[in-house]
């Protein structure tokens, strides 16, 4: 049991380190390190800087390095990708807008698009020249994704094209994306998982309308996307007609494999605050009530870190990491929310101040308070993750589903739009 690199891994790490040292945007380091959770760094044009860094990486073969070379990657092993992530460190946070494209859309395109399409779309996606989004969730289909209603129908002109009508919601980055993968319903007369079909489309297609949604934290990272008679050529279909559910599973499965340094919980930042801020009983870190909470979060943070290390070890041995990885977001989201609440409590009256210039710790805990609720919802809610653990890890029965075998257009709904 050791944390040491194999000689090959060590050589690779050295190569990465040397390149990053010579090429990283060092002038952004401070702004990136001080960024409030989920609110991005202040004072810089993040998208422009992110694209510049991504392009530089791509030119040197460090973008999406686990992808094959012909699609813009480096053909790196999973463990090399992890090493890259560890070494990229704070600069990796610049690439937040690319996560969905690189982590979910790209692998889906890779698995289901034609060879010609892969060579056309994947390299610019890897290089950050074209940004992709994921058009899955709808008002009537979030956790119950297969309940989605956006329609795709064959065009009446016999062209073989598809005509899309409907609405997506919570689409992160739709407003700056060039392309998107879109799941639709092509057959409402069969049970809901069977009538779905996946496409990708140009976000500038006529009939696509994007409306930003203002979030709890005041930002607008996600959007409503409306489709009115949007035309998509059949060549942009991913997978079979009616096979959209299986395609979406590929997309979602790839999420599990993107393991990195482990999710942050805010614990190191909280400990640091507790070593500096006074309560009525002296320094917060000396207060027994605070200590007990700190200890609980400390062991969660460290448990996540070392669970990640176990996954990396599996990768290093050429194995696929086990299901224990699914606990990351479940633990980190709730912990972060609790940590933010205690951090504000310790700041007492001043905890209300949400201004990086004057709040304790750059208002990072205020940002965390206002962003952490989303962590518990996005990409699978806490409840859905518990279901997944219970069913796929522990082998408990699936929830009873009254709608499973019923034709989609006969399922009772709330607020249904035909």
């Amino acid at each position: 049991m050791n944390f040491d690199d194999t000689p090959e891994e060590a050589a690779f790490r050295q190569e990465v380190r040397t390149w990053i040292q010579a090429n990283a945007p060092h002038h952004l380091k401070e702004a990136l390190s001080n960024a409030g959770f989920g609110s991005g760094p202040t004072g810089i044009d993040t998208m422009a800087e992110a694209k510049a860094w991504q392009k530089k990486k791509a030119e040197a073969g460090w973008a999406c390095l686990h992808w094959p070379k012909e699609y813009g990657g480096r053909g790196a092993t999973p463990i090399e990708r992890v090493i890259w992530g560890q070494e990229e460190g704070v600069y990796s946070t610049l690439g937040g807008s690319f996560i969905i494209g690189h982590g979910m859309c790209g692998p889906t395109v890779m698995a289901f698009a034609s060879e010609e399409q892969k060579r056309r779309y994947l390299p610019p996606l890897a290089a950050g020249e074209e940004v992709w989004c994921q058009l899955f969730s709808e008002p009537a289909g979030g956790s119950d994704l297969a309940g989605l209603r956006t329609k795709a129908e064959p065009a009446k002109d016999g062209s073989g094209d598809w005509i899309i009508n409907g609405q997506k919601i919570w689409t992160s980055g739709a407003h700056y994306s060039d392309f998107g993968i879109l799941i639709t319903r092509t057959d409402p007369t069969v049970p809901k998982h069977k009538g779905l079909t996946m496409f990708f489309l140009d976000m500038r297609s006529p009939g696509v309308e994007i409306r930003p949604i203002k979030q709890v934290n005041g930002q607008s990272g996600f959007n409503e996307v409306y489709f009115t008679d949007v035309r998509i050529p059949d060549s942009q279909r991913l997978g079979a007609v009616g096979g959209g559910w299986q395609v979406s599973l590929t997309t979602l499965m790839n999420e599990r494999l993107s393991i990195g340094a482990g999710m942050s919980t805010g614990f190191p930042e909280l400990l640091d605050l507790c070593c500096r801020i006074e309560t009525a009983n002296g320094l917060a870190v000396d207060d027994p009530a605070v200590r007990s909470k700190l200890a609980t979060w400390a062991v969660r943070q460290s448990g996540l870190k070392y669970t990640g290390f176990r996954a990396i070890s599996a990768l290093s041995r050429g194995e696929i990491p086990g299901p224990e990885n699914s606990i990351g977001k479940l633990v980190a989201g709730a912990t972060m929310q609790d940590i933010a609440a205690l951090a504000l409590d310790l700041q007492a009256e001043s905890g209300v101040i949400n201004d990086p210039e004057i709040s304790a710790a750059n208002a990072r805990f205020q940002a965390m308070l206002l962003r952490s609720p989303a962590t518990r919802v996005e990409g699978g809610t806490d409840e859905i993750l518990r279901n997944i653990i219970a069913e796929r890890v522990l082998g408990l029965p699936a929830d009873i589903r009254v709608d499973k075998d019923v034709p989609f257009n006969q399922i009772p709904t709330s607020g249904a739009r035909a």
Partner: protein
Amino acid sequence: MNFEFSDEQKQLRNEARRFLEAKCPPAAVRQVLEGSEPFDRALWKGLGEMGFLGVVIPEEHGGLGLGYLELCVVAEELGRVIAPVPFGSSVFLATEFILAAGSEAQKAKWLPKLAAGEAIGTFAFAEGAGAVTPRTIKLQASGGALTGVKIPVADGDVADFAIVAARTAPGNDERGVSLFIVELNGPGVTREVVETIDPTRSHARISFAGAAAEPLGAAGEGWSIINGVFDRAAVLTAFEQVGGADRALEMARDYALERVAFGRPIGSFQAVKHMLADMYVSATLARSNCYYGAWALSTGSSELGEAAATARVSATQAFQHCSKNNIQTHGGMGFTWAFDCHLYYRRSNLLALNLGSLSVWEDRLIERLRAKNVA
């Protein structure tokens, strides 16, 4: 990175599991719970024959001369079956004290017997309710003889000798605490069994009235030796706890699949599913933290203090969490004497206290993290 046990260590795990499944079924634990024997003597003898009592004891002293990772593996397996034997007292504590501070003569005298299971050792520390601090060590040592009372002493009724923390200089501070080895069958020692929350692990009150004692380690060094040994024992105990947590989770899962209510297995109710998912989460975090502890222990890392406290806090929480919700999953059946759930519930709460309670370890953890944060 290789943050996993090796193939040889996994093989050792299989061997230990096979042995314990044969020699320590729930009926054996129950035998101790309900019978008059304070521990399972046949199992103890068998563990000695397998070499499991002397995993880290050097070969020259009759042990296997293996490393701490191997001992962690064995500890976890003993925890899974909640083995009713004085393993923690004799192996995690007495053996570690002698390895850490014993003279060559003391090692030669005790280690071979410990490895073979011919002698049982324990550690006599607490002198009543409340966290043990240098101030609460009142038992007096003078002129090679001890006077005072230790309670509770794990396995104090069956141990052949005890490492005893005693006061050798007036005052309250840690420099006045020293360690002694006392043979418990000699004159000046009286022992009474005390009833505990887990009768499968016996405890005693030991009164010393001028009992003959031999110093272990230098005078005044007791407290720092204890801290060092406790960190090591904390990692080993954490593995025992994680073994128990995993088993409690499996019991709950199996019952949830088999018990039917409202026309369906109770494991199909989300309240039950989510409770079990949370048990899985805490057991997984604890296991990963234990690996961190094992790494620090086996490599002699300077991070051992932090790693040990992390593993100990995490594993204590996980075992308590899993054992109580195992009862909940079993409903009324879980509260019966006849079902095994309570054996795990008892053991999880006993182990949570044995080596200093959760709040004591939380304190230690934060002290250590804080020192690192300042540095």
